[in-house]
């Protein structure tokens, strides 16, 4: 097998925590220089996978090569060429932003002035100069994330792991992180990012692997995935909740797709490829005597992706939280 084209080449990766399987038989191939998205709900095994690939956790079984190096035998060499931005900010809250970067720069061999220069360049690039001498615990979520990413670039890595880089961020900060990931991709860095949001994977990743229960259940480009899932989701809220089963049945017959009922008692959603079809369906519903309170056509949510791929909604499990 030619492994050198792959930044990550993984076969049959497994990890158990006690009796709980976190990752089972995971296969993954990430092309060098690409942004790859690992999409899945909480507890799917995303973080465990990243922690294994970043040499923090030893797999129980499987073969893995990272940047052409054996994950178990060459872990020290791998560490010289990767960076990890963990799910929980991998920076020291008690220290200032500048001290965080200086500390890490020193550990990576930047001495004296070299460390100072590199730190200042990074702070300036990520718009953190003004807050450089404040303790990180006073930073906003977005600033913390930017510092975290800056810390991962002290020595530019060939492969960067970003574990849920935008979870908990406000939309503006999220867009900033997206800009950074795009800029990194342009500069040729391979990025493996995990996310719970289809939109994020869609925006950033060249290829996406959907993972559930520690397995890859679908893999492909964003458009390939959408062909499986349906590019759009029609959401309808009825005026009368009691009409929902009948409306669902009618839609399901018309579109030959499975309808999901939301927690809100009068709402339902169904995959629907384009706007023309959607308006046809809305008209049809009205003609059938269903009164619509509101409707919308949007991107499928993670739940809907899972519904389409597995036939059942994602179960948010706690295993990852416990092990994380």
């Amino acid at each position: 097998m030619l492994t050198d084209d792959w930044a990550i080449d993984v076969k049959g990766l497994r990890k158990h925590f006690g009796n709980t399987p976190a990752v089972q038989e995971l296969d993954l191939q990430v092309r060098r220089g690409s942004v790859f998205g690992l999409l899945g709900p909480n507890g799917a095994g995303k973080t465990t996978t990243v922690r294994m690939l970043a040499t923090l956790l030893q797999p129980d079984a499987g073969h893995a090569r990272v940047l052409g190096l054996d994950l178990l035998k060459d872990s020290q060499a791998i560490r010289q060429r990767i960076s990890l931005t963990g799910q929980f900010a991998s920076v020291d809250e008690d220290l200032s932003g500048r001290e965080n970067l200086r500390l890490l720069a020193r550990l990576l061999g930047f001495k004296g002035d070299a460390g100072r220069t590199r730190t200042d360049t990074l702070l300036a690039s990520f718009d953190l100069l003004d807050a450089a001498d404040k303790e990180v615990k006073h930073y906003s979520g977005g600033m913390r994330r930017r510092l975290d990413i800056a810390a991962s670039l002290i020595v530019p890595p060939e492969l960067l792991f970003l574990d849920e880089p935008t979870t908990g961020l406000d939309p503006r900060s999220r867009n900033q992180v997206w800009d950074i990931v795009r800029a990194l991709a342009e500069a040729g860095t391979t990025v493996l990012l995990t996310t719970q949001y289809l939109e994020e994977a869609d925006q950033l990743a060249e290829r996406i692997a959907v993972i559930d229960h520690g397995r890859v259940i679908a893999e492909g480009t964003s458009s390939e995935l959408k062909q499986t899932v349906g590019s759009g989701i029609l959401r309808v809220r009825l005026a009368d909740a009691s009409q929902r089963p009948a409306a669902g049945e009618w839609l399901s017959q018309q579109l030959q797709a499975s309808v999901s009922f939301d927690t809100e008692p009068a709402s339902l959603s169904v995959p629907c490829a384009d706007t023309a079809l959607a308006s046809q369906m809305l008209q049809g519903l009205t003609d059938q005597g269903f009164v619509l309170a509101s409707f919308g056509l949007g991107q499928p949510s993670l739940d809907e992706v899972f519904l389409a791929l597995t036939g059942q909604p994602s179960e948010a499990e706690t295993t990852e939280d416990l092990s994380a």
Partner: protein
Amino acid sequence: MSESLNQNTIDAPNSPIQPDLHRLMQQSAPPLPGTLSNLSTFAWRALLKIKHVPEQLFDVLITPIMFTVMFTFLFGGALAGSPQEYLVFLLPGILAQTVVFTTIYTGVTLNTDISKGIYDRFKSMPIWRASPLVGAMAGDVIRYTGSSVIVFAIGLLLGYRPEGGVFSVVLAIVLLNLFAFGSGWVFTTLGLLLRTPGAVMTLSWAVLMPVTFASNIFVDPATMPDWLQAAIGVNPVAHLVTALRDILAGQPSWSGIALSLLAPAVLTAIFGPLTMVLYQRQR
């Protein structure tokens, strides 16, 4: 959460982030520094922590003052005729007790620290894996030395004059540091094994209470029952206290010093590797 409501929270101006990453990514990696350099960086981190969270030194400052003053006047008259005379006997013991108690904070601090995400980063970096731990312990030298100096200062104020002079004081502090560094691994192990800092604290006290109080710190064991004397005979803290008394009296016994370092050496041999295994297996 309350974090986001914090009034101190500052935020960047509403500007798009367009980092010039091409230039940023041109940086080549400098040669990796040696382990000693990394250890000193982690010791520097410990200092920065003290700078930003000075409250953590509170115990280190208050405990030695309290112990020295309290026990000198509590027992001094009864046991030795006067506090000043008792101080000659007590001070080396109080030194040992203070520094041994301070080692608890190594475990408590580690327990708090390790749950933070920064350890994930340390573990994914090309550095000797143990260096965050060993470096932090090296930083603890500040605490040990600090509390020793305070005990000596209080002693001087109360009229204590070490017969061995300045040299003996320096030697005593070095011995205390070696003892504390070696025993500290017990507490790093506890720090990694237990879930909360509170649990680490409680269990550490449970270990340290008997070995410090059932010792020769406060009184000469000659009046104690045989079984207790036997226990004190193998108590590492008692060996440390004896070695310190000899040093400060100006008659350092090298075999006594070696004996006092035996326990820390054994503890390091057992709990050092154990700490490393637990650290690797963390999460």
